[in-house]
């Protein structure tokens, strides 16, 4: 994941959505591990 922030609303939304997906994956992984 790049730390470079682009400027168009679509690109910014994509950056934030990718981060949201990455965070969700981390949560799911931890919940499954301690499940």
């Amino acid at each position: 994941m790049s730390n470079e922030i682009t400027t168009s609303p679509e690109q910014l939304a994509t950056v934030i959505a990718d981060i949201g997906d990455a965070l969700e994956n981390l949560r799911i992984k931890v919940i499954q591990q301690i499940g």
Partner: protein
Amino acid sequence: MLPTVQQALKKIIRSQPNSATWAAKVFQTASKKNKLTEAKRKELIRLESEIGSKLFGQIPAGHRREFFCLDARTWVWHEEWSDNLDGSKKIHTVRYEVRDNGILKSVNGQDYAWVAADEAENLAHAAVLYHQYVASQVYGQSSNEEELPKMALNKEY
């Protein structure tokens, strides 16, 4: 539940009375597991929010701040404090909804509006930093950064 599914379940229960007990146990177990998963998820978000709240600098005395990723497409900024004059409780909650074509924002449950370019950029910066620090400090992934940076998300603050 669909009528056909309901009818099928009734048939099964009539033909095998023990199946009702079995089905109830299965549903109870699934429900308990879902509640437990939800509790764990909330606890993880609480831990993330402790870091998220510090991304924007020192929290003013008497304020309680939260900043967290609620789900893959939703980010929340929440701040509470007591008014200096009358002591009344003040609450400021901003909910950001990430769409394919931009970011929507709702303040204190009001109507959603598209965020301006500079606020969208700030949110993206905050999200990048949030992921960086949360991945390291909550989920134990490696990171080179030690100190949390200070930045502003919203010009109103």
